[in-house]
């Protein structure tokens, strides 16, 4: 190659309308005979039995100051499936996720437009703390509180703050709820020995599962996950991903991930966002194997991101 020749310019065709795949009753998107972009190493997962819509995002615009970070996005969130939002940095996916439990309101200067409903009710008319108990969130960095494991998981539960101290009497309901949440998070066997241990002494993967248990303790309807495995090693990641798939029957799950392979492994429906706009939404088979939009194809095949 002539070193003086400029590198080839890549142009990605711009097409404004998002492509929303028509809903299919059953099965993945493997029926189309067109050449697949990706080859699956794993067999496609069966879809969950009952799928019902939990939240609906309609024409939502979100801004920080004058900067519109999310532009006119509409999506459904269903229980029984995992919705994964993928996209490059700055695509607005995390902001959209945080707006689902009104966490964007903490930042001054945030503005919004459009409607988000939970079971038919506009979330902005619900009491905010109530909403956040029904729609809980797990963050990118594990953030267990400086308390014992038990107190962490029971945090959202008890109405009266417990007294600090080694052994204190707790109601059997709270104990049951905590044990169940730990089981659902797949952490119980590892910590059952001493629940009074400080949560900060757990490993990274265990801390993240503790955060998931904590989020599940109050039996939420929707679980939001913001890149939960980005700080973890592959084994912890695998544990958590299996967890997510197991949980989807009982909780609607929305996961934002930077990692295409993770979305690949975990998601039932995928929403690809770019620079705040929803580019494509469909089942994971459709989006990964036969993306309709050029930009989606470019992202998935690694042309940018």
């Amino acid at each position, binding site marked *: 190659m002539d070193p003086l020749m400029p590198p080839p310019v890549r142009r990605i065709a711009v097409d404004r309308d998002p492509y929303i795949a028509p809903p299919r009753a059953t099965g993945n998107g493997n029926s189309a005979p067109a050449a697949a972009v990706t080859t699956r190493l794993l067999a496609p997962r069966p879809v969950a039995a009952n799928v019902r819509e939990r939240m609906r995002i309609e024409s939502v615009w979100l801004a920080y100051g004058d900067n519109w970070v999310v532009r006119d996005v509409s999506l459904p969130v269903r229980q029984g499936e995992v919705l994964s939002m993928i996209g490059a940095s700055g695509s607005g996916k995390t902001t959209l996720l945080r707006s689902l*439990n009104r*966490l964007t309101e*903490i930042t001054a200067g945030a503005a919004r437009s459009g409607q988000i409903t939970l079971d038919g009710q506009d979330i902005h008319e619900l009491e905010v*703390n*109530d*909403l*956040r*108990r*029904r729609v*809980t*969130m797990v*963050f990118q*960095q594990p*953030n267990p*509180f*400086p*308390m*014992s494991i038990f107190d962490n998981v029971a*945090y*959202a539960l008890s109405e009266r*703050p417990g007294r*600090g101290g080694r052994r204190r009497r707790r109601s059997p309901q709270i104990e049951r709820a905590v044990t169940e949440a730990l089981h659902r998070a797949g952490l119980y066997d590892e910590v059952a020995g001493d629940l009074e241990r*400080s*949560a*900060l*002494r757990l490993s990274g993967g265990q801390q993240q599962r503790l*955060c998931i248990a*904590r*989020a599940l303790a*109050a039996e939420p309807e929707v679980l939001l996950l913001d890149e939960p495995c980005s700080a973890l090693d592959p084994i912890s990641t695998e544990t958590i991903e299996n967890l997510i798939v197991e949980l989807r029957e009982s909780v609607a799950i929305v996961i934002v991930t930077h990692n295409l392979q993770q979305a690949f492994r975990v998601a039932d429906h995928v929403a690809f966002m770019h620079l705040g706009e929803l580019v494509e939404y469909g089942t994971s088979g459709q989006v990964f194997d036969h993306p309709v939009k050029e930009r989606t194809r470019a992202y998935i095949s690694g042309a940018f991101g």
Partner: protein
Amino acid sequence: MDRHPLTPEPPRGRKRRWATARTDQRVELTLGALAVAALVLIGAMLVTVLIKAWPSFSHNGLSWFGPGGDIETQFRAMAQNKALPGHSILYFRAWPLIWATVLTTGSAVLIALLVSTLAAIFLTEFAPMRVRQVLDPVIRLLAGVPSVIYGLIGILVIAPYLDDHLIGTARRESVSYVVQLNGADVMTASLVLTVMILPIMVAITAGALASVPASWREGSLALGANRWRTIWRVSLRTARPAIVAATVLATARALGEAVMLAMLGGGRSFAPNLLDGLTALFEPVRPLAAAIFQNSEGLTIAPLGHTVYAIGAVLLVSAAMLSLAGWAAKQQFNRYGLRG
């Protein structure tokens, strides 16, 4: 050790600019000696005070701490070298002083703890930006204001106000056979003491609350806890070591406060009688440190000197125990990972 031929040799004599290993040893020894000297000095202080105090304790035994007579009379007897009838010249019963200290320091620290925690929460969480910007330097200024100025304000403003408006004639007469009431009393002293230790407690607590990691607060909010719950269960819990340290500091300061309490406590060493009801608030007090301050003239007179040093010894031991308590509390908090 062989030196590389091109590295310069440390110059000798007056031009020496950096030290060799041998000078370093000498420096280390000198500094170590300094440390030992400081330790010896501090140890000497402890020992001397205790030695000078011993006669007073040995003569009175444990009832040194008990009640029994008027302190002023006892001091006067020692100053004039005329023992009180039936007692030795070193006779002393410090209970009024101790009770005064417990009342003033205890009430000041308790009230200040509550108020400073609430105020710190207000400052870090709820106060608008401009209020915070004004209050921060003001609080830091107040933390550094000398106690004599607080005493001045107290004695020129608060005491007369109390005297004129809150102490009625009836009250005065009810205790006039024992003590004269004026505006300088345990209530004034405690109030001003509270105001004096507030700024440092607020500053430390607010600093600790502000350094609670944002991820914990966000995490708590995302679980559906409202802002107050988040503050109470996460932020305050994280700030607990700081609050304990602030309390220990404030208690040490309150215990050692001599001048302001001497100005505002009233003219005599009296143990307020709680059975007097509300009138007890208006009775004069003289805590331990203030007693030392008021009687410092007579240190050369042997019995008086011994007694004053005995009071000093009590204060020293309390200060040491406070330090220990602070250290113990710090160990406790390490359990839940509230450390680096």
